């Protein structure tokens, strides 16, 4: 009989090794899935994971990886902080959308003025939009104890409808007759979030992601707030006795993740996406949940996880163009990765014993 024995403390070695093991297992299972779809599994895996980084056209793909990794990392860092504290914000997608709408609307008020102050102003409003959207579940949770998982998620659907109404109605480009979608923000000098160093894909969102990672890392390891976040997650009871203000923690965690998600939305709408359109929401807010877990809810781990997940997007697009691999296969692949990650986590907290156990 195989049974599990709880480790006195989680294993550090397994904690570091389990994401790698999960990635390896996902590659095997993913390869089987690609084979079942009638594609050569090795070629598919090579197209997704090898070619974009080291292949012939890597110079093009590498920039794309950072473009995709930026918002993922930015959102995931905020989410991870909440997940650490047991605050489940799964509505980052909604905060991302509202951030983009708020920021874009704030900028478009000044159209067509040209000033260097407009872009920072838009970033502030993007952050503000994200915070405002996240404050709804936060305040309801703190004041009334309403479940933040369900409220934040429901607000995603509300945000999607808000986006549709902005795109076809009140933010619609007045010069484009009959077409939905706002003015192109990437082509307006005052708001364009362009590549900072040509060919690298680094735009302001990537810079912001880097700052957020450093900030979150320092806060978690060096600041009292970070200690309270970790304490509240590990033992809510101990946190209460220790004088942690749970309500303030919830507001801060949701506010912080909402702010980052809103900023990610703004950087996206002014750069890679270019405009508020009906299909602006691309699921970054949900994929960032996988990124946060893959990075073990650790800001530095999230950087690696975000890059890997961006690679699956970029490589997946290449595979669907070159090999005809359906793009849905990539989201199934990403979901699988999260499953394997959660499954191998058992090794971090438990020892697997083979043989007759004392307790069944």
């Amino acid at each position: 009989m195989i049974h599990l024995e709880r480790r006195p403390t989680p294993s550090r070695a397994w904690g570091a090794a389990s994401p790698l093991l999960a990635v390896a297992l996902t590659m095997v299972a993913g390869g089987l899935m690609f084979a079942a779809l009638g594609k050569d599994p090795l070629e598919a895996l090579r197209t997704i994971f090898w070619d974009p980084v080291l292949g012939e056209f890597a110079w093009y793909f590498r920039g794309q990886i950072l473009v995709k990794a930026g918002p993922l990392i930015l959102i995931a860092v905020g989410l991870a902080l909440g997940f650490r504290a047991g605050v489940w914000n799964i509505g980052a997608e909604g905060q991302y959308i509202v951030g983009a709408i708020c920021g874009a609307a704030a900028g478009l008020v000044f159209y067509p003025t040209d000033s260097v102050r407009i872009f920072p102003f838009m970033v502030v409003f993007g952050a503000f939009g994200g915070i405002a959207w996240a404050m709804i579940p936060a305040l309801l949770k703190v004041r009334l104890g309403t479940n933040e998982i369900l409220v934040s998620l429901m607000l995603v659907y509300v945000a999607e409808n808000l986006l549709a109404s902005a795109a076809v109605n009140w933010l619609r480009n007045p010069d484009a007759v009959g077409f939905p979608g706002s003015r192109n923000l990437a082509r307006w000098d005052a708001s364009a979030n362009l590549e900072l160093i040509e060919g690298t894909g680094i735009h302001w969102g990537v810079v912001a992601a880097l700052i957020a990672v450093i900030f979150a890392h320092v806060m978690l390891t060096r600041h009292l707030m970070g200690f309270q976040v970790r304490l509240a997650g590990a033992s809510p009871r101990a946190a209460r006795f220790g004088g942690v203000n749970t309500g303030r923690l919830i507001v801060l965690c949701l506010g912080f993740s909402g702010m980052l998600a809103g900023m990610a939305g703004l950087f996206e709408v002014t750069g890679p996406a270019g405009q508020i359109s009906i299909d602006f929401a691309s699921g970054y807010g949900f994929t960032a949940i996988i990124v946060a877990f893959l990075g073990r809810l650790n800001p530095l781990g999230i950087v690696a996880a975000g890059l890997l997940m961006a690679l699956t997007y970029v490589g997946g697009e290449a595979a669907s163009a070159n090999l005809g691999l359906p793009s849905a296969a990539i989201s199934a692949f990403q979901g699988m990765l999260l499953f394997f990650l959660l499954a191998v986590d058992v090794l971090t907290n438990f020892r697997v014993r083979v043989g007759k156990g004392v307790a069944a």
Partner: protein
Amino acid sequence: MDLSSISPALLIASLMVAATPILLAALGEMVVEKAGVLNLGVEGMMIMGAVCGFIAGVESGSPWLGFLSAAVGGAAMALLFGVLTQVLLSNQVATGLALTLFGLGLSSLLGQGYVGIKTNTLGRIDLGPLTDIPFFGRVLFGHDPIVYLSILLVLGVWAFLKYTRAGLVLRAVGESHDAAHALGYGVRRVRLMAIAFGGACAGLGGAYLSLVRVPQWTEGMTAGAGWIALAIVVFASWRAGRVLAGAYLFGGITVLQLNLQTAGARVPVELLSAAPYLVTILVLVLISLRAGRGGDAPACLGKPFHASS
């Protein structure tokens, strides 16, 4: 706006149809939560049920086979969650989210050859003269069999939890898994069975969307119905009868907003489309006002169980 175009009898009849997917999923989830497990993957199981049911329905030509494979597909997804959370003791919230993300991806992968195809759907049961009774005939009779099945299932679950020994064991496992374990009940086995039942129900609910209500397959067609089902369980304070009431309430709001859209109400379409979600939030808020913290939730909801600890 022309409100007279909305007939009350038709409205009630169509709200029952609109509510059935949510009702089935919420009922399954309620049993799961009664056993002390929080499965946030309802949306993923529903969409898998929708796609499995639709594929089986198209390939075999029989909607009944479709519903059967939807139940199997939903249960298989649920058991994936069950093995992870019960055997490998992973975090239930995270695993449920994973189930939803994976289900959405896998379903669009499986269903890509089936977009835009039509299939045989379930006919209404024709009860002849009964259906011709004014008002009640249209409301009570002349639905498709799954609507009646879902109502029977509500009665069945209610009786099972309230009057049977197995139902008592299931509730005991949900209220205190340590006590249930000490009494010799297989906590893990009971929970796995409850999880599989919940998955099968969610699968049926999904298939009802793709085989009867719409009836077509489109990517992401559940559009949050699974999450609304989760909210309804909270709204219903974990009681079968109130799950029925909650689901029909939401079905009513959905149908009403659709009717208002077609009647040309002077309200933005987006606001109407967002109404079911906004009302869900509103209801959750009202519930938390009434219940205070914790409320009637099973005491061991969402807590992992490891026998040797």
